[in-house]
């Protein structure tokens, strides 16, 4: 476990800002305690400092996880955001898309979101922007993705057009348990 290097921080924050925008600052300066990002086995964890200090005394072989895992760096140095980060991403997200009940299961099985499934979405979403997917009925976050079209173009699209590309969904907890953690 170690703090992120400058390059890593840059890559990571660039990725993260795609979803939470300027809210990154509120992830770091929190009123309820000091929080930090730590890298452990290529994964980035977001954790309260108290817990991080305890984790120092745990052997790196024995340390499995701490706090919340945001995602991992792959071998080529790119950062990939995991579904596990949803708890924070949803909290600070800038743009949201609400999915109707007929599209929920489809999305949770890893499919893109079609226009027919979109209940409502934030008005000013640009193209290729990270969005958090919510369920329209219960308003619970289900995952996140990237817009295929800007919000302004959505009304012109045909019902089968992809609006949001799938990136991560809560179904991965069941499908990808072996590779995710």
């Amino acid at each position, binding site marked *: 476990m170690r703090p992120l290097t400058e390059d890593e921080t840059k890559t990571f924050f660039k990725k993260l800002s795609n979803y939470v925008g300027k809210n990154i600052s509120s992830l770091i300066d929190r009123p309820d305690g000091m929080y930090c990002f730590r890298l452990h086995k290529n994964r980035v964890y977001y*954790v*309260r400092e*108290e*817990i991080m200090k*305890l*984790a120092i*005394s*745990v052997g790196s*072989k*024995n*340390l*499995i*996880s*701490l*706090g*919340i*895992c945001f995602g991992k760096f792959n071998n080529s140095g790119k950062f990939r955001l995991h*579904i*596990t980060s949803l*708890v924070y991403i949803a909290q600070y997200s800038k743009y949201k898309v609400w999915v109707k009940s007929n599209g*929920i*299961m489809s999305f*949770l099985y890893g499919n893109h979101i079609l226009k027919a499934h979109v209940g409502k979405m934030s008005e000013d979403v640009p193209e290729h922007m990270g969005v958090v997917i919510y*369920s329209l009925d*219960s308003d*619970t*976050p*289900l995952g996140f993705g990237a817009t295929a079209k800007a919000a302004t173009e959505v009304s012109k699209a045909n019902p089968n057009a992809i609006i949001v590309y799938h990136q991560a*969904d*809560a*179904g991965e*907890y*069941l499908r990808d*348990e*072996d590779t*995710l*953690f």
Partner: protein
Amino acid sequence: MGRKAKNKQDVPLPIEIEKQVGKTTAGLRNKLSYITHKNQKAANNKKASGKKTNSNTISFVKAEDHSPAPIKNTVKNISQKTHNQTIPSNKRPASKSSITPAKKIKSQSWDSDENEADQAPVAEQSDIDQNSSEEEDLSDDANDDTPDSDKEQSNEPADPRTQHKKMLFDLDSESESSQSELDDIPDQEEHDSDLGSDQDDHLEDSDEEYDSDKVNDSFSDSDDGDNTIAGLERKSERLTKLQSIMDEEGEKELLESKLHMPALQETEVFVLPEADEIEAEESGIKDMKSIQVRIQEIINVLNNFTRLKQSDRSRSDYISQLQSDLQFVYGYNEYLLTKLMEIFPISELVEFLEANESPRPITIRVNTLKSKRKQVAQALIKRGVNLDVISGKWSKVGLTIYESPVPIGATPEYMSGLYMIQSASSFLPVLALDPQPNERVLDMSAAPGGKSTYVAALMQNSGIVFVNDANKDRTRALVANIHRLGVTNTLVSNYDGREFPKVMGGFDRVLLDAPCSGTGVISKDPSVKTNKSEADFVMLTQLQKELLIAAIDSASASKAGIIVYSTCSITVDEDEAVVNYALSKRPNVKLVETGIDFGKSGFTSFRGKHFDSSLALTKRFYPHTNNMDGFFVAKFQKVSNSKK
């Protein structure tokens, strides 16, 4: 499952089935003729057994030998009733006449369902039901008598057969309801409505008869709409008088029935099979049903040993036979069954074994970090799930799932972490631990994380939950659950729990849900029945002791200093013995109340071993009494940090 599997193994060849069917029907005819013509019984039996020549026959003969017993007994019980009648003398003849036809009908009905007759217990039951329905047709008075006399019998301490008791109660309840209908009509004609309602109240008690008759006799002319206070007083006086009369007569009857208890006829005594018979049975095909009947018989004998035993057999003969039969029927290995027999009295043991054959209801725990019980319940009901809050008021976050058209572990609500599938019993150690916000808590063997996420939820994501599991593969599911439920205050490690005070100490609270044999969760994992040997128990108890010592040493007395030890096993070796060991090795801890107000207290002595008296503060939970997995919870308080 075990039972079915056993049955499959013993599938007989078609020829054998033919033989068997032929023989059993022959045997049943014998039984029937025995009931109707008791005198010819011996001759008939001879004929039947004379026909059988090959080695397998013995088991069948045996099956016949004792399966008639229950039938005889029911007949006898009913006839006994007539003997024991002492009260309202004018009713005696009526009741006798009412029962004799019933007896006849019974024997006829045996004739008619010959094919089912080898399912002795079931057939019997239905028979009795028929019987009672027949009785409904009989006169009021007769109906009044039967249930009452039944009760006398069941009250008798000497009544031999619990099985029949049960059935007689069934009969009671039916005839009672029928009786209430019958009674109400004539009574309301005679009395004002007040009395009628009185009667209704009393119908559930055993004194219907008095209400309907004595009340009739003595007050039929006296009460005419007395709504005044004086009238009510009078009425209550009458009732108390009645009550005292009833009590007296009840006692009298009880005494008399004791005196008049007919001597057992030899044919009614259950005969324990001889050693050579058993051998023959082992080599041949065992008949599941006859063995189940035999189990019931042996339990009856054991429940009333002095009266029903064979003079030349000892209690241990019966018990060893019972054990081998139970082993066969439920598929346990000898070692585990012996262990279980040590824990439970015989009748409770069968209840426990039966409870292990049926699954416990699925329960879920609502994740209070993300949602509320009401919301989750509503969302699931929308999906067509049939659910209810967990029975009892001890949990505010539990829901029981009765039926679900969708897989409960794959709904969008589950995936977004609104609830966790978790057995009701595993709520208990967390409730006992009672974690408070901003504490440092250790969960020593946490996977798959049901309890640790519950701890985190109770702490509202504050403080630190140090989650450990010794098995690296299982930590994956643990981490997945932690993230899914949105728990942010954990640190997951992969140590052997025994290393613990060295890795880190000074915890406020430590939860040790120790690895165990799983004898409390046999309904979930039936392989426990056969794959646990003495060596496993020795190894496990050793590990449990070491872990508990490590857990105690990891807690800090200067903080909350609470340690909770729990297992999903019900053997004393893994529970009380381990706790007692820890108490003796670490005098700086003491047991405290778990804070759970149901379940049984732990054993303070067991088969000659005496444990610390404070072990009564520990709690045991059983599948057959609490309808949750078998579980054990002990809560320690650390009083000082010095180990001496």
